């Protein structure tokens, strides 16, 4: 046997592996995705578009966009601050801090909602104070924001920390020694180096913020037109057996995630160093 044939699989192995992968991915990924569009269009395009444009659906789209509009900037500020502290400075307890930033990824989304109910719910820590001052957090938009901030918390930070650690501190030290202030250094020296990683983190954060279900469903109260995000609206329609409606709103979310995947693929192609394993 020549070395060449020994590092390449025989044709039948290749055929077997590819067919197993094809069957598996069809059953788990492709067919579910296709079925969303098929179910949405079951009665044609008209009813699907109608379901996407009911007042409740539009309210849910607006709330979803608002949630992402709050979560993404917050995540950028936190992520840049955390990466700046961790990657550009040495301090005691750094690896503990890095682990703590990742904690939301290992907490069930339902628990992420529960903790805010315990604090701000009517029987919670601040419950009676909030009622006295007529402030609603749980079963209202602020609760949805908090739950979304929790579940998206690590996205930008965990992209930027390894990236900025790799880049080291030479450029920033040079800038500082030439008299540049912190903000100038951040904006003129660091940002150009991290923009693609930042964009990658923002993309994933945005997708999660718009799609979060478990955490948001616990704090939302499912009030139609007021506290329903798109995924919650999908659930309500589905539970009411309005399948065309549920799958039509779901199809919108699918298009959004396909767009996310395309942008992500483009970023990875143009900037291969941004790809990191194990999100």
């Amino acid at each position, binding site marked *: 046997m020549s*070395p060449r044939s*020994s*590092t390449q*699989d025989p044709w039948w192995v*290749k055929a077997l592996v*590819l067919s197993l*992968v094809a069957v598996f*991915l069809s*059953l788990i*990924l492709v*067919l579910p*995705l296709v079925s*969303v569009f098929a*179910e949405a269009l079951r009665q044609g395009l008209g009813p699907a578009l109608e379901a996407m444009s009911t007042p409740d659906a539009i309210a849910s789209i607006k709330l979803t966009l608002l949630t992402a509009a709050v979560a993404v900037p917050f995540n950028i500020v*936190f992520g840049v*601050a*955390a990466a*700046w*502290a961790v990657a*550009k*400075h*040495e*301090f*005691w307890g750094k690896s503990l*801090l890095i*682990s*703590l930033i990742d904690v939301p990824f*290992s907490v*069930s*989304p*339902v*628990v992420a909602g*529960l903790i*805010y109910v*315990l*604090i701000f719910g009517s*029987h919670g820590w601040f419950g009676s104070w909030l009622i006295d001052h007529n402030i609603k957090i749980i079963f209202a938009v602020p609760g949805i924001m908090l739950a979304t901030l*929790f579940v998206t*918390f690590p996205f930008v930070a965990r992209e930027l920390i390894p990236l900025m650690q790799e880049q080291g501190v030479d450029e920033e030290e040079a800038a*500082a020694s030439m*008299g540049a202030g*912190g903000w100038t*250094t*951040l904006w003129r020296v660091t940002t150009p180096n991290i923009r693609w990683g930042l964009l990658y983190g923002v993309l994933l954060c945005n*997708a999660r913020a*718009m*799609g979060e*279900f*478990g955490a948001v469903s*616990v704090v939302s109260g499912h009030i139609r037109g007021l506290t329903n995000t798109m995924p919650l609206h*999908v*659930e309500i329609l589905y539970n009411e057996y309005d399948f065309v409606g549920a*799958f039509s709103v779901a199809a919108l*979310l699918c298009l959004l*995630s396909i767009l996310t*995947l395309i942008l*992500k*693929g483009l970023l990875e192609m143009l900037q291969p160093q941004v790809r990191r394993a*194990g*999100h």
Partner: protein
Amino acid sequence: MSSTTHISSGQDRRPRGAPPLFRRRSAIPGFGLSLGLTVSLLSLIVLIPLSAVILKASGQSFSQFLEAGFSPRALGAYRLSFGAAFVAAAVNAVFGVLTAWALVRYEFPGKSIINGLVDLPFALPTAVAGIALAALYAPNGWVGQYLEPMGIEAAYTPLGVVIALTFIGLPFVVRTIEPVLRDLSADVEEAAASLGAGRLSIIGRVILPALGPAWLTGFALSFARGVGEYGSVIFIAGNMPFKSEIAPLLIVIQLEQFNYQAASTIAVVMLSASFAMLLVINAIQAWARKRSA
């Protein structure tokens, strides 16, 4: 600018007897602000709220804790959440490594689409995945209609939970194994081949051992994600107590009945399990680093 003289010097010029600094001095400004912001936001959004659930669960006697956290119904829910997550992670460990292998080693039409699609579970809202899988595997669904004559009930059974968790966990395995497989240089394989090793023994004695740590990490990440998963599962699970009710759903049910203490207790049991798994994952990664060093 007199102040630049002391920040740019690497030496510690603190007066004698000053308390030891907890950080090394750096010429780069913004340490206080960035660390302050990081720690305050982390505490306000994550750590203090999480402590609420632990406080709530600890405000009861030990026997109450056991009763709420380890009731037969709760035990059934843990068994399903952990068991289904384990099976799904095992399925992903097998098909994930095949998928990664195909993506790294083979050329085939549509490869870039498949590559993008593997990340779909990261991007697709879990509720959408849930209703899509439920529709697909229901007895009248595209796939379910062929399973039913074979006597396989997928939707609304524990098998449905496994299917949903397989969907959720797949990218963790593929994306952890893929870079390791890519870095595994063909030289090593060629060397083994030139020494007379056959293809099977190369796979068994060179490739698989090198993949080991990444494989375990991917399995553990997929398992950990599956244990807490809610959105994609509840639509396909059937949600029957003792049978097809996952632990996160039981938390929601307790919460809806205003049993905050019971909900918190189950949450604390789940949290402890998650943190234990986090430690295991870190240990695997530390072991892998040591082995490759």
